[in-house]
C-alpha cells in the first residue's frame, strides 16, 4: 500500500485504463501538452499521443458533446472540465444527451462517458470560480454522480467509472489534489454506489462527502473529548445515493447531522434528511440538522469567504447543541 497524492491517484487510474484499452481517451482544456491544471494527466500526452490525450478548445458544451458522441460507438472518453463552474456550460449535453440517450432510445444507445471536474471553494477565487454543483448533477436521472474524499477513492472510482456503461460525473475538489492517502498497489475498483464508514461511532452520524468528510472527521475528534462518539459516513456516491447505508447508520446512532459545502436549498443535506424521514423517522432521538454553506455567491474577501463555508467548528457546535451542551 503506497501513499500518494490525490492527483497522482487520478493520474494513475488514467494511465492504467489507457494502457489497457486503446479506446480510452482523455480530453479537456490544457490536459495534454500542459499536463492538466491539477496534473491529473501529467505525462500522458507524451505516452499516448495527441489523438488520445486531447487538448480541447475552450468549448465546454462542444467537447463534452463530442465525447458523448464518441462514446456511442465504443470510445471511452474521460473528460476533464477544468472547473465545475465551466461545467454549467456543458449541462445541455450532459443532461439532454448523455443522461437521456439510453432511455429515450429504448435501450439502444449507451453513453459511457466520464466527466471529472473540480468544484468547491478554494482560495479567494470569487463568485464565478467557487461553485459547488454536485447538488445539481445528483438530481438528474440517468447520470451517475460520485465524489471521492481521498486518493484511494479517486483512483478506484475513476477505474470503475471508465468501465461502467453509464455516464458518470466525478465531482472532485480544487483544494484536495495534494491530499495524501494510501492507495492499494494492485488494481482496485470502487463500487459506484454505496457509502463508507470513515469512523465508527454510536452517538450521532455525521454525513459528509468529498471535502466535508474531512470536516466531519475533525469534528468527531473534538466531539470525542466531549464524550460524544460520532460516526462519520462518507457518501462517495450521490446518484444513486445509498438509502440503505443512511438508514443503517441512523438506526444505530439515532441522530444525524449532514455536513455539506454547498448552499442548503435542494442539496445533499435536504436529500439525506428526506431519506431519513422516509426510511427511519421513528429511529430518531432528535431532529436531523444540516451544516451548510451560507446561501450566497462566494465573496472575494477571505474573511467573508471563510464565513460563507462551514467549518469543523460549526459541525461541533451543531452536535453539541443537539445534545443540549
Amino acid at each position, binding site marked *: 500500500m503506497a501513499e500518494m497524492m490525490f492527483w497522482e491517484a487520478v493520474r494513475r487510474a488514467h494511465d492504467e485504463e489507457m494502457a489497457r484499452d*486503446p*479506446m480510452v*481517451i482523455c480530453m479537456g482544456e490544457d490536459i495534454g501538452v500542459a499536463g492538466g491544471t491539477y496534473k491529473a494527466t501529467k505525462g500522458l500526452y507524451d505516452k499516448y499521443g495527441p*489523438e*488520445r490525450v*486531447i487538448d*480541447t*478548445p475552450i*468549448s465546454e*458544451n*462542444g*467537447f*463534452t*458533446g*463530442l*465525447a*458523448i*458522441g*464518441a*462514446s*456511442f*460507438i*465504443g*470510445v471511452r472518453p474521460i473528460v476533464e472540465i477544468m472547473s465545475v463552474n465551466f461545467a454549467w456550460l456543458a449541462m*445541455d*449535453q450532459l443532461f*439532454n*444527451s448523455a443522461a437521456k*440517450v*439510453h*432511455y*429515450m*432510445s*429504448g*435501450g*439502444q*444507445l*449507451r453513453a459511457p462517458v466520464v466527466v471529472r471536474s473540480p468544484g468547491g471553494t478554494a482560495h479567494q477565487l470569487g463568485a464565478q470560480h467557487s461553485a459547488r454543483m454536485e447538488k445539481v448533477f445528483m438530481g438528474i*436521472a*440517468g447520470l*451517475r454522480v460520485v465524489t471521492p474524499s481521498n486518493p484511494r477513492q479517486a483512483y*478506484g472510482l475513476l477505474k*470503475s*467509472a471508465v*468501465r*461502467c*456503461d*453509464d455516464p458518470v460525473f466525478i465531482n472532485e475538489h480544487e483544494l484536495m489534489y495534494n491530499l495524501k492517502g494510501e492507495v492499494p498497489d494492485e488494481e482496485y*475498483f*470502487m*463500487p*459506484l*454506489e454505496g457509502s463508507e464508514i470513515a469512523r465508527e461511532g454510536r452517538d450521532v452520524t455525521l454525513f459528509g462527502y468529498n471535502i466535508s468528510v474531512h470536516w466531519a472527521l475533525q469534528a468527531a475528534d473534538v466531539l470525542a473529548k466531549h464524550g460524544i462518539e460520532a460516526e462519520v459516513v462518507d457518501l462517495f456516491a450521490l446518484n*444513486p445515493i445509498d438509502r440503505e447505508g443512511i438508514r443503517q447508520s441512523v438506526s444505530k446512532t439515532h441522530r444525524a447531522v449532514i455536513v455539506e459545502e454547498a448552499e442548503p436549498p435542494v442539496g445533499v443535506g435536504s436529500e439525506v434528511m428526506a431519506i431519513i424521514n422516509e426510511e427511519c423517522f421513528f429511529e430518531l432521538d432528535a431532529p436531523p440538522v444540516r451544516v451548510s454553506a451560507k446561501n450566497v455567491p462566494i465573496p472575494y474577501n477571505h474573511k467573508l469567504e471563510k464565513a460563507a463555508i462551514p467549518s469543523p467548528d460549526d459541525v461541533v457546535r451543531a452536535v453539541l447543541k443537539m445534545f443540549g451542551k
Partner: protein
Amino acid sequence: MNSSLKNTLSVESHKRLLREMLFARRFEERCYEAYVERKIGGFLHLYCGEEACAHGVIEAARPGHDYIITSYRDHIHAIKSGVDPKAVMAELFAKVTGTCKGLGGSMHIFGVDHRFMGGYALVGGPFPLAAGIAKGIKMKGGDEICICFLGDAANNQGTFHESLNMAALWELPVLYVCENNLYGIGTRIDRSTAVVDQYKRVSAYNIPSRQVDGQDIDVVYDAAVDAIEHVRSGKGPYFLELMTYRYRGHSMSDSNAYREKAEERRWGERDPVIILRDRLIEAGEMTLDDYKKLDHEILEQIEDEIIRFAEESPEPPLEMLEKYVLVENDPWVRGGAG
C-alpha cells in the same frame, strides 16, 4: 435533367426514389391525420416538402455503414437509413413495437442497428455528437463517415461554432447537411441571422461548403456524392447547404400564420416529388396513370400494413418505466465482476 451534373442516377434509381419520396410524403401526411385523431401525442414535426434532401444525401451515402444523426424532424431520415416504417409509426403511436419501445416519441426515433443514431430535440444538439461519432470512426480506422442533418436555425447555436471548429481542427470525417427551409420555428431567416447564406458561415472554420437546390433530387445527389467523397477520403469535414421549404408549420402546434401565401405557392411549384415525377414522365419512363397507381399502392400500404401494425401493437408495460434509466446489471457498479 440538368446536363451539368457530374454524378447521375439511373432510371431504376429514379423510379425507386420517386416511390420512396412519395411514400415519405404520404407517411408524414398520415401522421398529420393521426395527430389530429390524437393517436399521436407530443410534438410532431413533419418533413413534407423537404423529401429530396434526406433522400438525395442518403442515396449517395452507405446506409447501415455510415452513421446518420439528426434533429427532431427525423422520421424520414430514419426510414431512408433503413429503419422499418412500421416501427417508426408504432413509436409515434407510443407502442412497445416502436423503434424505442414507446419511450422516445416522434422527436427521438433511433435505429442503431442501421446506424441511425437518433433524433434529438434540442436545436443544435447533434452538432457535437456527430463530431464525436466522427472522432470514434477515426480512432477505429474505418472508412465510415458521419452525416448530420440539421436545419438552418441550428446554426445560431453555440454548438454549431464549437463543433465545426473542432471538426475542422481535428479533420474529422463528418458531413454537416444544412436543410435550409428559411424559418427557425416561426422566424424567417433574415430576421434571425446576420448572414443568410449558411454555406458562407463555415468559411470561418476553413470547411469547404456548397449551397444547392434542395428540391431537385438529382442536384442534391450530385452535390452529396462530391461532399461524401471529400469526407470519406480523409480530407476532413464538409458543409452542404440545401435550399428547401417545409409545407407545414414547424410543428403541429404551429399555426403557420407567419408565411405569405405567395411564398408558399412559389415553393409549392417546386415540389420535390413532382419534379422527379415529371422528369420520369418527360423521359417516357412513366405515365401519369402509373404515378396515380403508385400513389394508390402507397396509400394502401400505409393503411393496411403500417397504421394497422401501429394500431394493433400493445403499449409498453408499466414495468418498463424505470428500465432504461441506467444500464442494467453493469458489474462495474459493484466495483467489478469479482
